[in-house]
């Protein structure tokens, strides 16, 4: 129920179409031009997937920011939270709608996949795994955005917050960040930060090392963020 209403809500305005168009156009643009796809003369989609974390960093918060902030702004959160339904169902249903929307965006980039198959013979297994990985990573970004969206009725704040937190997760694996932490933090912390890296986990998938641990990482992170989302909603009642 809540899934259906939320998914439909994305299409209530032309914004959805604009969003999907932007996503596909930017994905294709990055792949072909910025990454000089043709000069590499290699028929695969690795350039496409390289850009996905950065693209998601901005676009997923844009999808997720409205999930709860909008309910608070409209006051409809009072309706939802006084229905005889566990908040878990709302949190999960809303996230699922956003996740499905992100899935749709990814599906729309599949002409790229077809193109590389026309141009050469890529490893389609790796590409398929990469798509699944990208979708799960999008899900993680969305769960974070949903969680932050529950903190405010201001969508812009929700967006900014989600980008900042997402940025931390994206940056976590970079040597730059690790080098900054290493001198003063114990090894465990450095490793913990490194293991939170979105790009690290995602790259393992796109490199073709189909690692279950990377999938488990994204799924656990989604689970944790949604759990936190429910806790935030509960805490706001007692505020």
């Amino acid at each position, binding site marked *: 129920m809540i899934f259906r209403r939320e998914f439909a809500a994305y299409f209530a305005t032309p914004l959805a179409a604009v969003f999907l168009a932007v996503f596909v156009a930017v994905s294709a643009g990055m792949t072909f031009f910025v990454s000089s796809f043709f000069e590499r003369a290699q028929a695969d989609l690795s350039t496409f997937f390289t850009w996905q974390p950065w693209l998601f960093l901005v676009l997923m918060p844009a999808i997720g920011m409205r999930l709860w902030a909008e309910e608070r702004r409209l006051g409809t959160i009072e*309706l939802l939270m006084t229905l005889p339904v566990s908040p878990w169902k709302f949190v999960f249903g809303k996230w699922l709608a956003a996740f499905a929307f992100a899935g749709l965006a990814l599906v729309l980039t599949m002409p790229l996949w077809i193109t590389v198959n026309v141009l050469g013979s890529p490893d389609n297994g790796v590409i398929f795994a990469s798509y699944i990985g990208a979708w799960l990573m999008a899900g993680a970004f969305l769960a974070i955005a949903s969680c932050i969206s529950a903190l405010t009725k201001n969508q812009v704040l929700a967006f900014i917050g989600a980008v900042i937190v997402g940025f931390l997760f994206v940056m976590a694996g970079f040597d730059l960040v690790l080098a900054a932490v290493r001198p003063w933090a114990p090894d465990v912390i450095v490793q913990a930060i490194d293991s939170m890296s979105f790009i690290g986990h995602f790259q393992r998938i796109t490199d073709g090392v189909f690692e279950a641990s990377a999938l488990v990482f994204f799924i656990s992170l989604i689970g944790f963020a949604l759990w936190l989302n429910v806790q935030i909603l509960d805490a706001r009642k007692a505020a």
Partner: protein
Amino acid sequence: MPNAQALVETRALIKKFGPVTAVDGVSFRVDRGEVIGFLGPNGAGKSTTMKIIAGFLEPTSGDAFVAGHDSRRDPIAARRHLGYLPEGAPAYPDMTVADFLGFVAGMRGLTPRETSRRLAELVESIDLADVWNRRIEALSKGYKRRVGIAQALVHDPDVLILDEPTDGLDPNQKHEMRALIRALAPSKAIIVSTHILEEVEAICTRAIVIARGRKLADTTPAELLACAPPRDPSVPQLVKTTPLEDAFRHITLEQAGV
């Protein structure tokens, strides 16, 4: 144990927002067939009390029961018996009236068949036929308020909590809303908040006056009238007031120490 009779009961509700005590020890009970007028100046704590009964907010201390179910320990059961119109009648602007009410009915666990039967009744009793397939963002205030009432009535609850149901309506719409509430009254326990005093006389069996979070009076509209200080005929009335307004001002200003 709460008395089985009372459909709504609050016990010493206190709600603090940081330093502000919005509700300060409010206790009352409402039985079936009663329409309670929840009266008080703006900021008195009416909405906050209603949100606590509806289970949207948790009290800092005290308890609220709906149909015998503790709104904190047994929220799902309490909510099944409750229809709630939040202040301002919020609804999803992008949905049509039909879709929105269907959505609420589905969330409340009505089967598709029950939903269509119930919605057909509500279209009649709340007069929504003209806007049935219109998007909520395109509705007038009066219709939006009616959609809010319909949403609260979808599951035919025992308890209705209506936060300022007539706010912003024109006199005809107010009249219709009051007629509707009166028609619903015998089978339910209803709490209606308002700062419009004539409303209390028009529809309520009992009036509870609160100001600054405290309950100041809990009585029939007729007895409330008796609280009005006697008029001194020698003092000219610059602003015409009704006896009920006098009573209200007397009660609420006295507490404020004016």
